[in-house]
């Protein structure tokens, strides 16, 4: 274990290869150190994580992605929802079933935070709690969220929830608490440690593989190739937000 008491700024700078300097905000610089370079890399600005949801593969009666998200992040238990209005309950990911008004064709798909490239929730947040990581994941820094809910006003996808009641026994990997806003974080803790998001995992295990996960910046990634090959849409594309979540066969 590193002895951080003896570690001066100069030591940190001298320790060389494993040092990553990151700028949080103007004038605030953080030093990352320790571990192997690969492990300490963190969110990579060279990547942009995204999802491609194939509505034709998504089963109307299947809810496994929602269940997996609940288990992974510890929201939406019966105990949690017992004393609140359904409209006040957390909703990180939801299934929608759609019917084309013209043709009558019925499809279903999950909707979660769309991880916009130009996220309105980040623009409007007064404190900077609503933020975008270098790898494009949009999430809430609950340490500085004051619970003003302006991000929820600004989100075109109803992707965010406000925690309306005191909580205990949260998952260690998914802190969430009264008076702050929360939403899908694309399972950032899993991605950071080299794992696929829980919904992608669950959908594959259910035998549907309707959610394709990958790096949108890598032209050779399966998601980039699929986007290049087949027609797809972004929800509320008229707003020009360039979401990281795309839909096909909707």
């Amino acid at each position: 274990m590193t002895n951080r008491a003896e570690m001066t700024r100069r030591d940190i700078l001298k320790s060389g290869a494993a040092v990553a300097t990151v700028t949080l905000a103007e004038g605030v610089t953080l030093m990352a150190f320790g571990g192997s370079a690969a492990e300490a890399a963190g969110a990579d600005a060279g990547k942009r994580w995204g999802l491609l949801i194939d509505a034709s593969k998504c089963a109307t009666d299947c809810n496994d992605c929602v269940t997996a998200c609940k288990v992974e992040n510890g929201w939406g238990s019966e105990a949690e929802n017992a004393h609140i209005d359904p409209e006040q309950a957390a909703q990180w990911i939801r299934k929608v079933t759609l019917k084309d008004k013209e043709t009558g064709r019925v499809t279903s798909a999950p909707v979660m935070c769309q991880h916009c490239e130009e996220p309105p929730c980040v623009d409007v947040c007064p404190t900077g709690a609503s933020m975008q990581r270098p790898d494009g994941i949009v999430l809430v820094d609950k340490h500085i969220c004051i619970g003003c809910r302006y991000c929820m006003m600004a989100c075109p996808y109803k992707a965010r929830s406000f925690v309306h009641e005191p909580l205990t026994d949260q998952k260690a990997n998914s802190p969430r608490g009264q008076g702050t806003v929360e939403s899908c974080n694309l399972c950032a803790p899993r991605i950071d440690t080299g794992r696929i998001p829980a919904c992608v995992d669950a959908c594959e295990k259910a035998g549907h593989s309707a959610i394709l996960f990958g790096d949108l910046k890598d032209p050779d990634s399966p998601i980039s190739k699929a986007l290049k090959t087949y027609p797809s849409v972004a929800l509320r594309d008229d707003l020009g937000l360039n979401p990281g979540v795309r839909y096909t066969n909707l």
Partner: protein
Amino acid sequence: MAMDQTIYRELKATPGVWQLGVLLIAFIAAAGGAVLYMEHHGHAVTGMNNQIVWGLPHVFAIFLIVAASGALNIASIASVFGKAAYKPMARFSSLLAIALLAGGLAIVVLDLGRPDRLIIAMTTYNFSSIFAWNVLLYTGFMGIVAIYLVVQMFRRIDYRIVRSAGLVAFLWRLALTTGTGSIFGWVVARPGYDAAIMAPMFIAMSFSFGLAVFILVTLVLFRLNDRPVGEELLKRLGRLLGIFAAAVLYFVAVQHLTNLYAAEHIAVERFLLLDGGVYTLLFWGVQVILGGLVPIALVFLNPSRSSTILASVLVVIGGFAQVYVIVVAGQAYPLEIFPGYEVLEGFHEGVVSPYTPSIWELMLGLGGVALALFAAGLGAKVLRVLPTNLSDANVAAKG
């Protein structure tokens, strides 16, 4: 200068003043209790939810904040536009502006999910957020108007300093209301909000609501101390209020006509103007007719002391309705995430979100109003901001 002959005296502590003070403190205490209750149980005990994220407290808060900048009008007309008749009321107008803003901000802060983190809102800014800019505009307004009030109260001061301070305060209040309107005008995702006209409309609203509140509060305080207010002065203020109320209606008409012209906005207009239930009723019945057309008719067709008073009350009621329709109906109207599709199953997709305010939200909102009025009254009690005489003879002698 003629101005110097106006005599300002602190409010005398009559039994009426005490009774009113105690009543206001009771409301403030009730709001304090409501806040503790909401803090303890979370927002689950309110009617607000994940669709209607801003509810009744915000309606009160935005009304007070908008009225605050408008309450400064009297002072601006006096020092910036040089109308001598308004000068005796300028000090109290400045004080009331600060008090109303304090009341409105108290509501916003106490409704936060984490009011204990107010310090974060005051120290950590995201400058791409209009909300963050508003925090700066509000605190700046308090400071600037406080300085303006102080220079007005100096016995011997070059009047150019007062005028300069008044000009800065006037420009700042325009920026402030632009900011408040833009909180809604810049929300592109919601068809009920997204409109550049929100900013100038909020400025017109502030002129109207602020003047109405100023007239009512000033009259109550004068009545409590048996100080005279002239009929002609009130008629004059009434006419001004009528013009401001007409300006609000003008912006409302332009906003809706513009939306009606665009096919993509027809649905939201239909909701607001035709079949939005309570919102439609509030819009036509309370905002447009009761809070707009009636007061305008009163002050122009039958100018009198009582017409001005009644018009002021109606403008305040209409103003609340207008802010309620803007804030709540704008959220209740569903977001269209899947154009061209009917949503068979989902989480309240495409349906109007219900909202029933809770008693706690009402208590918090009323407490904010009480706080604003208490602060204004207390200011008038300890500072020499209220003139002893606003009778027509006295005002005319200086005008």
